[in-house]
């Protein structure tokens, strides 16, 4: 099985977010970009499938500027991906998921994969647009919110679940699909030290993409005002506290269902 997994370098979880001068985007100065979140699950899922279907290989692809994109690809190689392609894109284009998908699609056509795995959304913009745009560009079906993805060899089809508001859906897909993964079976593995060292020397194919014209851009990036401490509710009886709280949630906070 030829599996492609698409990943995006995102700021690591502990990053202290800062607004860049000009106020339009976050300040990437000193920020460490890593493979994280749903993308990490996607790589894990790709490796699990590779291990369960003999003769399979995993091709990891990422679009973005250097050096962060190259570093994230090396992390994926250290985890066990067989080959890697870096689609070089300037930061602004890479931050538009549709533009990123347009840049990546041509890199996946030869040979056409049996499965394209992505995280359901990136840890920074959380747009969830990349994988579905990629599906449309490749002309194959795409599904997000996927959990429990399996390959059913007897039926030569992928099976998976999608938890939705209406309930849990179960799907069967006999051909190539693009999956926006929500959860892999297990905790993502940690790369072993010898593989980390080997990944530094691994070859990475590089494609320089001409970015598609941007369809949207960030105008403002804002951090919420810092919290100042709770407004404590004064009450006489538990029922009184309950009534006050419900009223506050409905009328003041406007979060009552």
């Amino acid at each position, binding site marked *: 099985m030829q599996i492609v997994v698409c990943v995006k370098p995102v700021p690591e979880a502990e990053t202290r977010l800062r607004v860049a001068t000009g106020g339009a985007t976050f300040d990437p100065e000193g920020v460490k970009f890593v493979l994280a979140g749903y993308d990490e699950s996607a790589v894990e899922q790709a490796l699990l499938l590779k291990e369960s279907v003999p003769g399979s290989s995993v091709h990891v692809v990422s679009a973005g500027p250097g050096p962060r994109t190259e570093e994230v690809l090396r992390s994926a190689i250290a985890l066990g991906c067989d080959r890697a392609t870096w689609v070089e894109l300037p930061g602004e284009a890479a931050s538009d998921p549709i533009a990123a998908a347009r840049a990546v699609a041509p890199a996946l056509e030869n040979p056409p994969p049996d499965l394209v795995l992505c995280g359901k959304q990136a840890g920074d913009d959380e747009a969830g647009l990349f994988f579905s745009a990629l599906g449309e560009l490749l*002309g194959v079906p795409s*599904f997000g919110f996927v959990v429990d993805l399996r390959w059913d060899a007897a039926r030569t089809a992928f099976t998976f679940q999608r938890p939705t508001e209406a309930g849990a859906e*179960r*799907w069967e897909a006999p051909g190539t699909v693009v999956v926006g993964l929500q959860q892999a079976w297990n905790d993502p593995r940690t790369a072993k030290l010898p593989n980390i060292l080997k990944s530094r020397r691994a070859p990475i194919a590089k494609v320089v993409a001409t970015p598609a014209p941007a369809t949207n851009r960030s105008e403002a990036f804002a951090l919420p005002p810092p919290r100042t401490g*709770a407004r*404590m509710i004064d009450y006489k009886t538990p029922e009184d506290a*309950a009534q006050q709280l419900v009223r506050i949630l409905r009328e003041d906070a406007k*979060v009552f269902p």
Partner: protein
Amino acid sequence: MSAGGVLVVAELRDGHAAPATREAIAVARELSGGEPLSAVVLGTGSAAAATELGRFGVTRVLLSEAAGAESPASAAVGIAQAAERAGASTVLLVGSSWGRDLVGRLAVRWNAAAATGVTEVTRSDGVLRVRRPVFGGRATETRRLDGARAVIALRPHAFAPASESVGTAAVEPLPDVEVPAPLRTPKRVALEAASAGSGPSLADASIVVSGGRGVRTPENFRLIEELAASLGAAVGASRAVTDAGWRPTSFQVGQTGRAVSPQLYVAVGISGAIQHIVGMVSSRVIVAINSDASAPIFKVADYGVVGDLFQIVPALTQEIRRVRGLG
């Protein structure tokens, strides 16, 4: 940016328009500034839904009862067709699982700008702008959508639903559209309706109720679950609870568990250790209930109740059920 019309994508649920669609209609009404409102419904039962949509101010409903709309790929084909017919320049929908999955496809197919998880939409001087949370809710960005067309998926429960008004919609069936064979091959083989007992998943819930060590015993944790059920909320737990084995680790909210950013987070009997805080601090509204007035949780909460949770929580559950008419 040309001011073409707004097309609302209505989602079908059990043969009716999903309640969340009314949120999209409300936003569409504002954006279209009095212009006639169109909607598109796809799938079996869309005809029945069309009549409902008329009651919320939609004047033209395009529909197709062809099978396969549960697949985002097929749905995107149908919606692109409807958008052409309606002469729309903006497509609006609520970002449910179904809705979100088709936005990227539609944006490519229909050559439009796209945004998801949107909590604010404005149009001024012909420029469409959206606001949305990013970085797990720790920040917000404002994006400007350029080009002639836009597809916008709203964050669920971020907008008030449209109120009812008198009106009927003209219903217009869409001609069958050719969906390429590769897009038609996946099949949904089962749909297990969400049971009353199971709430939404932590990851996507807009309300989360979490319990901590303060509940004292695993049996008492049902107080948390009852409160959650009354709000239609997901249930979470602090690490102390999952480490003690009272609930599985999938319930754990925190640094080594999961991070959530719902609209409302209720922390019951949770002291507020930093490892827990980082997992929920970006929730829009935080309510804390704890017997210890100096518990650190009160520093990050918006509203606090100091008291005995064994008295406060049942009273709160009862009041919520009363107000929501849950009996």
